[in-house]
């Protein structure tokens, strides 16, 4: 029996999970057009390797990764590339991003270069990772970190591989449905991941409100005889599904601030990622589709198997939603999801849920229109915070723009789960303030970094000029020394004669100067009358000079 631990705070949320789990998952309709963003993961965007007009096949590589932390993109269906251009994507700032847009032909013709692996044990772990990378697999829980990077133990010894099946946000049920329908495949995927990581043991954490999924998993673990896998039920508290929180619940360990789970010998992956790994290794299929929950005020809430790149509105309409009555569309769950500004945004590898709310829906959405009240320091936020922050203080400093103090209160440990916001009786958009503060601090650091670079550049320039001057001097000296050395070889006798001649010339010049400075003879033997006149002239000149001095002094004062 696995011992469980508790994380601080958290909130109990109304689940809203019943509707979408009532029927099996079915494939979504093939959309007329697929929009495939070049960046569907954290890291460097991929680089398109197809051109407009190219015919592509299902599963064909259409954008290659750039650098280590990157993932390729594959065509989700066969068709023609009609554009490589910016298109609306899911982004909090409503930015659009470069996408490859494919008109589907409806034929679903697969590419030929699929390479299934009959027995993954035959390949070294590096080769497995390379295949996972080539399949474009990224973390499917939401963050979208390229999976192959997280499957590389590098220098660490990995003790525990955790599979995250704790889908804690309301409405979302895609992982639960995946586990119910493909428990065996997920476990095979987990074993492949364990092999790639060389981990000692595995834990599958699953919330205790997903009984069917839990039973299916346990059954399959028993059947496959994988005694190194523990399937563990964890309490249903939001945000148990957060990586750090799940690790804490299952192991009692905390990921160090600013560190990675790998630092404590743990790696955590989503169950959807395990399934994608299974498909990539067993069938050589890249990640081109995923399970997506469509819920909210749609007529038929359900889970669909969706091709990556399908526009959100297609799925909403397929589930009985009406384009004209929508008031809010959220990608992700109601606690951390992003509200879309455009319903043509495509499903990406990290999209787990689409929540469509109609204007007249009876869904308890927070109305952010009303003015928030002042903070009354009730501390409910601090009580709910899963990382034990003091949101009321963070809020205070964010409002005061005291960005030093706010970092003292560990702003950057905030996981933006929204628990504080959820419980705040003053309805203060706390997370919004924290995001703002983080962005400001990043901007400041960026500016500081730029200033540092500029200063360094200036210093280098100064140093370079100085150095060049010195080098110039040295070159001159060397040149002179070289010339002197050449002359020195011509003979010392000639030199001596020359010196003597110079000496003589200098003597002559000196004598001449002395002769010139001899007093004029006409001032000797002056008569008293002449002497008086000279004295008078001198006095006048002195007076004139004095006046001129006074005038000059006045001028300078003015």
């Amino acid at each position, binding site marked *: 029996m696995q011992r469980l631990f508790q994380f601080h705070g958290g909130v109990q949320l109304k689940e809203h999970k019943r509707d979408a789990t009532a029927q099996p998952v079915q494939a979504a309709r093939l959309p007329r057009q697929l929009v495939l963003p070049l960046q569907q993961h954290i890291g460097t965007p991929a680089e398109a390797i197809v051109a407009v007009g190219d015919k592509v096949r299902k599963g064909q590589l259409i954008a290659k990764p750039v650098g280590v932390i990157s993932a390729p993109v594959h065509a989700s269906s066969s068709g023609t590339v009609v554009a490589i251009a910016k298109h609306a994507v899911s982004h909090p700032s409503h930015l659009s991003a470069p996408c490859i847009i494919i008109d589907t032909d409806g034929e679903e013709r697969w590419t030929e270069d699929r390479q299934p692996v009959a027995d993954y044990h035959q390949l070294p772990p590096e080769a497995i990772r390379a295949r996972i990378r080539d399949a474009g697999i990224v973390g499917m829980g939401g963050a979208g970190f390229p999976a192959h990077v997280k499957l590389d133990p590098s220098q660490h010894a990995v003790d525990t591989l955790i599979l995250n099946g704790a889908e804690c946000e309301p409405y979302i049920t895609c992982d639960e449905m995946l586990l119910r329908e493909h428990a065996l495949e997920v476990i095979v995927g987990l074993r492949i991941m364990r092999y790639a990581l060389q981990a000692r043991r595995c834990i599958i954490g699953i919330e205790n409100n997903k009984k069917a999924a839990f039973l299916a998993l346990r059954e399959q673990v028993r059947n496959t005889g994988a005694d190194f896998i523990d399937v563990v039920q964890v309490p249903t508290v939001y945000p148990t599904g957060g990586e750090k929180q799940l690790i804490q619940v299952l192991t009692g360990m905390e990921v160090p601030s600013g560190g990675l789970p790998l630092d404590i010998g743990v790696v955590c992956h989503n169950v959807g990622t395990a399934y994608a790994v299974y498909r990539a290794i067993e069938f050589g299929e890249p990640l081109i589709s995923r399970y997506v929950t469509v819920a909210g005020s749609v007529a038929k809430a359900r889970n669909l198997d969706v091709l990556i790149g399908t526009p959100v509105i297609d799925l909403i309409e397929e589930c009985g939603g009406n384009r004209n009555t929508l008031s809010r569309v959220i990608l992700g769950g109601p606690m951390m999801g992003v509200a879309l500004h455009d319903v043509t945004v495509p499903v990406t590898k990290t999209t787990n849920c689409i929540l469509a709310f109609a204007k007249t829906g009876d869904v308890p959405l927070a109305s952010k229109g009303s003015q928030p009240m002042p903070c009354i320091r*009730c501390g409910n936020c601090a009580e709910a915070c899963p990382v034990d922050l003091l949101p009321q203080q963070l809020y205070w400093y964010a409002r005061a723009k005291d960005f030093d103090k706010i970092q003292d209160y560990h702003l950057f440990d905030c996981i933006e789960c*929204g628990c504080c916001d959820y419980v705040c009786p003053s309805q203060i958009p706390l997370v919004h303030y924290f995001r703002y503060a983080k962005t400001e601090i990043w901007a400041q650091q960026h500016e500081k970094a730029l200033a540092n670079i500029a200063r360094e550049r200036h210093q280098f320039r100064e140093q370079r000029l100085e150095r060049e001057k010195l080098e110039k001097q040295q070159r001159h000296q060397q040149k002179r020394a070289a010339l002197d050395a050449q002359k020195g070889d011509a003979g010392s006798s000639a030199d001596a004669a020359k010196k003597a001649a110079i000496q003589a010339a200098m003597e002559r010049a000196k004598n001449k100067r002395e002769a010139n400075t001899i007093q004029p003879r006409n001032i000797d033997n002056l008569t008293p009358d002449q002497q008086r006149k000279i004295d008078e002239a001198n006095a006048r000149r002195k007076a004139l000079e004095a006046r001129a001095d006074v005038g000059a002094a006045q001028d300078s004062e003015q």
Partner: protein
Amino acid sequence: MNLDTPSSPHIHSGVRINSMMLRVCLALVPAIIAYTWFFGWGLCINILLAVATALCAEALMLRIRQRPIAPFLTDGSALVTGLLLAFCIPPFAPWWITVMGAAFAIIVAKQLYGGLGYNPFNPAMVGYVMLLISFPLEMTQWVPPNIVNQLEIGFIDTLNIIFTGNFPYQLSIDALTMATPLDTIKTELGLNVTVTEIIRGNAIFGDFGGVGWEWVGNWVLLGGIWLIYKHIISWHIPVALLGSLVIISFFFFMLDPDAYPSPMFHLFSGATLLAAFFIATDPVSASTTPRGRIYYGIGIGVLIYVIRTWGGYPDGVAFAVLLMNMAAPTIDYYTQPRVYGHPKAHHTIHPSRRDDGDKP
């Protein structure tokens, strides 16, 4: 198509300030009933007076400060302030006492500091202390339950007393008022009478505290427990306050039961329970970190005992709360919880943060 694009989270628990404040008022209802049962209609009239004054003062100040009136008037905070203040004023105190106290609490202690969320002190306690210091005579005239019962002072009589100062049967207030249990203990102990003798020889004492007071205390306790159960207040402050008061009074009681009243007497006398669950837990002026709330509660408990036992006032609740209000920001600073993934809590005393190494 126009879509809302607020930032996450998109759902809310639905708990608002006014629903919290209303629950606080609701939790006081049993105590109000018990109080009225023992001490007559005075409290009900005082509550009406205090609440009406508080709301008017709030509206006036919001208008002067050019703040939106409706959301702040309906947040329930002025209601709670009025209610708590009325609880502390003697039931037959003249009307202007109540009005003045409530107006002072809202105008000076709350709105002049910036209104809801910005007052460093508990407004009701500031109002009470102002009255206690300025009008000690009116503020200490309590008519004990047995007299209220004997004379059958009805609702009209009470209105008459409060608004005109005329007691029924041509009696004067001086003839009817008596010292409260805390007063009696304090005065008589000064005359070298033992606690047991004081309690035995006086009709105002019941099983634990004063006859009516202990019952009011029971019902306050009940309401307080309900508030904790409903997560309107956290357990930290009440438990720490009552715990520290019990421990310290038990210590002295064991030392000399004749000179120091029992812990039960301290719990069920004066405003101890009201303070523990309703006054010290005022979120705005209290400590907000979990550990800080414990220190804050302990501080109030100890101060209550110290002021009651060795101070100049029979009940130290208001002073204890205000004194600890002052300490709350500092307590908060030194009791930050250890954040996930950090080796230990961070509390340096110097405000300047780590050097970013950007020195040239």
